[in-house]
């Protein structure tokens, strides 16, 4: 229990840190710049404008501290202000979320499976052909910047071979529906972005999994498992694999931030209208509330995943259950 309360504490502190970063940054900007940015905003109702002014400290009627607390209060009640177009930040995020969720969610799961299996297998059959090729290859691939993988894939499959579309999430002029043709269209558009992400993130995972697996295999209890005459698969997965993954679940969740970053770049590269692309356009538009809202959202996503991983570890690893 203490373990979990400590982790929740960390969760809250990190959230607070992200909120504070959001608060501090516009105040570090020269005063008239913030004013100028606000000036570009359209369709803002006075209440929203007031909230933004507080956030940016533009019309400093209040002290910094009281602005801070009002800002925190706004955030806790879900009011993240409006974008430069006057649309509430939350709804803007909400509309783009499903696309990114689909892309990142699916690729992360696939990459996790590939990475884990490759790591476990290559560690078990160490010195064999699999181990000689797979981990170094995947690892080197994981150090390749994700945008380069994306560029290559676009060049080969979209430009040269013309098999797959250049970008976007569905063809121009298509109407969203649950029809088979639309779904197929969506999948075609998502294939290259997804492939880029899977290639790079499996590599991230396989190397650490392999090393942890090697260390675990060297543990005496794996030797005992083998000595007891348990079937190979049983020892490999039930004794070594399971024990090797568990302590790393949290580490894996923490890498999610890196994956989300990669998704931003990929969405930009493929003009894929998810949250990452939104972040990019917000940057070029100097749309501060939207950028801050997205940053907060990303932080929250990582935190939630880390917390889930911690919970899973606590539940599955009997050693952490000691009160």
């Amino acid at each position, binding site marked *: 229990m203490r373990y979990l309360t400590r982790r929740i504490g960390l969760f809250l502190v990190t959230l607070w840190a992200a909120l504070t*970063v959001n608060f501090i940054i516009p105040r570090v900007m020269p005063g008239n710049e913030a004013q100028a940015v606000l000036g570009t905003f359209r369709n803002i109702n006075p209440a929203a404008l007031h909230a933004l002014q507080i956030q940016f400290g533009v019309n400093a009627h209040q002290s910094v501290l009281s602005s801070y607390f009002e800002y925190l209060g706004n955030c806790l009640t879900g009011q993240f202000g409006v974008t430069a177009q006057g649309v509430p930040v939350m709804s803007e995020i909400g509309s783009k979320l499903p696309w990114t969720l689909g892309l990142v969610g699916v690729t992360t799961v696939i990459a996790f499976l590939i990475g884990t299996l490759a790591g476990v297998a290559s560690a078990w059959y160490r010195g064999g052909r699999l181990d000689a090729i797979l981990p170094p290859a995947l690892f080197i691939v994981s150090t390749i*910047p994700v945008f380069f993988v994306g560029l290559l894939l676009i060049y080969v499959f979209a430009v040269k071979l013309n098999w797959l579309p250049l970008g976007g999430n569905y063809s121009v002029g298509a109407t969203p529906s649950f029809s088979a043709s639309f779904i197929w269209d969506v999948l075609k558009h998502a294939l290259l972005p997804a492939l880029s992400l899977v290639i790079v993130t499996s590599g991230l995972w396989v190397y650490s999994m392999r090393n942890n697996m090697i260390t675990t295999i060297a543990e005496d209890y794996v030797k005992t498992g*083998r000595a007891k005459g348990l079937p190979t698969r049983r020892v490999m997965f039930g004794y070594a694999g399971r024990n090797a993954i568990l302590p790393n679940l949290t580490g894996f969740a923490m890498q999610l931030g890196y994956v989300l970053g990669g998704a*931003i770049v990929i969405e930009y590269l493929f003009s894929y209208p998810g949250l990452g692309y939104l972040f990019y356009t917000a940057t070029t538009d100097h749309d501060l509330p939207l950028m801050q809202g997205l940053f907060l959202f990303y932080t929250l996503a990582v935190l939630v995943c880390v917390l889930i991983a911690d919970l899973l570890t606590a539940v599955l690893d009997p050693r952490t259950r000691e009160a």
Partner: protein
Amino acid sequence: MAVTDISLAEHAPDVEVTGAPARFLRAVLGNKKAAAGAVILLVMVFVAAFPGLIAPDSPHATIYAQDAAPSSAHLLGTTQLGEDVFSQLIWSTRLTLLVTLVVSVIATFISMIVGVTAAYFGGITDRTLTVIIDVFLILPVLPLLILLAAYLPPGVTSLSIVLIITSWAFQARQLRSQGLSVRNRDFLVAARARGERGIYIILVEIVPTMSSLLAASFLALCVYIVGFAAALQFLGLGNSGQLMWGTMLYNAQQAAALEAGNAWWALGPGAAVALLGAGFALLNYAFDEIGNPALRPVRKRRRSRRRRGRAAA
């Protein structure tokens, strides 16, 4: 230990102390992957130091045909404005490498100070610093980078600053663990008994024992910095006038190079970034296997062919 323990009958053997640089060199030369990494990095350093030798054309000279495909005159084609891509690639090496190394050195230094201080002082200092490290580790890096970079004037200085801020925490935990394991050794107790101050102990006594972990951390950080710097510039947060691979990528993307026929304007710097990152990563292999002998490659023998899967325990 029982009084009847055999080891009491023996004398303890002397421990050989070999120099760290010699060990490192041996590890690099003996390990194929690390040697490959070293070669890549040496080539990069050479290119960065003497770009004129390889690409005599000025990278900014807009004198050539525009958007030309690769040819013998222009190995990687030309840009939209008529500059030679290969030339730009070569001349960008210097700034790219410089930024990477400087940022990594500073970030590793901060990482080390924070990690070892936390380990050495323990208690409330340790807990506070650990929380700070964890917070920086969880905050998603690229979003934070983008957020920070968007508010600062575009350029190499801002880039370096935001990179340092977001990457110092990367290795801090490992450095802290190492610091913890060293903390109670006799030579440190002796230093404390001599009345040395904490900061002295940290810098002069503890840090030198961690040299291989520091080097490995530095290299690992380089891999990430190379990628993140390029990604930031790719997204447009750098100064497109400054000559770095990332800015080349941005310009290429803005000009839709992939479709326009001079794809190497984009693929060239991309490949260069990948190569540099791979170089650092490969060199780092030398350390992984020094530190953990269990990870060292296993030499295959003919005899055990009949026993598949026996490679375990």
